[in-house]
């Protein structure tokens, strides 16, 4: 009897340990009822569109524009700051959360890089934290060489949104 309990406990620990050791979650997100309804105030529509479609394609969280019958969960806006070290930022707020794209940097980026920044920030809005250097959720989104979710990004997404 005791042996069965010990075996079950070890099995449970082995199931939980990899998640806590390797998963990268913020503990916060912009998802409301498996959905992110967004409002668009950014000039970088291509980047925003790419970010929405590349994560929406994974299927677990519906990412769609806000409408007259829904409440916005997320706003896309632009900033222009030369003194800060970020090209994109996601912040949780009372009311709609906010993604800011820093045009001081984005205006000199290629389309590929702009999409990388926007997709990275959308990853934060989905609750994902920074992870590895060869993933979209690397702390420097334009350093990874990717602008779509990679294997670990997807693994984190599916763990968080089973």
């Amino acid at each position, binding site marked *: 009897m005791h042996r069965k309990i010990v075996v079950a406990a070890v099995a449970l620990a082995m199931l939980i340990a990899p998640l806590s050791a390797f998963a990268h979650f913020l503990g*916060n997100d912009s998802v409301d009822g498996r959905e992110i309804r967004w409002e668009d105030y950014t000039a970088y529509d291509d980047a925003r569109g790419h970010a929405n479609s590349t994560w929406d394609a994974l299927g677990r969280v519906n990412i769609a524009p806000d409408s007259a019958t829904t409440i916005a969960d997320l706003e896309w806006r632009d900033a222009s700051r030369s003194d800060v070290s970020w090209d994109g930022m996601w912040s949780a707020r009372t009311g709609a959360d906010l993604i800011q794209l820093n045009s001081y940097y984005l205006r000199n980026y290629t389309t590929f890089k702009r999409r990388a920044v926007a997709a990275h920030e959308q990853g934060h809005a989905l609750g994902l934290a920074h992870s590895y250097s060869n993933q979209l959720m690397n*702390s*420097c989104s*334009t350093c990874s060489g990717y602008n779509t979710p990679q294997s670990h990004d997807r693994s984190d997404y599916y763990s968080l949104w089973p």
Partner: protein
Amino acid sequence: MNIATKHLSSAALALALVLGGTTLAQRYAAQPRTIHVDVSHVSDFSDTRKLAGFADNVFIGRVLEKTGTHSPDGVLPETLFKVDVIRSLKGSLSGTVAVNQQGGFSAEENAMILIEEDKLLETGKVYMFATRTGGDGAWQTLVPEFGDLHMGNGVQQVDVVQKFEKAVKEQVKYQP
């Protein structure tokens, strides 16, 4: 217990519950929460050569006082500190400067807002700063997480200085 006593007891209990609940609610509401803001950095600042190449100024400074909170872009609070420049490794800062740290207390959110895990500077402590000039020269904005390294004491301090002297010498200029 007669009916009057029973009613009185019920009223007292209800009042106690309301007052107790209110006090608890007030106490809970008064506790500011912490909100972590998540950013995408423009470069890999864990490489100090890239950090030094991105920064306008790299210097050792002591925080004298917190001078205020502002919001240059109208979104997030940012906190200003008066800092005494002890030694400049890159740039030409001297005397006292205004160091701007993104993050700070937001009354609107009743929350301490931090960029990633970048805690607010502490008065009296010495840091290695990596900053960019902002506000048309009015302040130096530090790079969150990487540009406000607490210096510690003794050997640790010497190590940090040597590391950043080398980084400035071998700096990798930022290219978008």
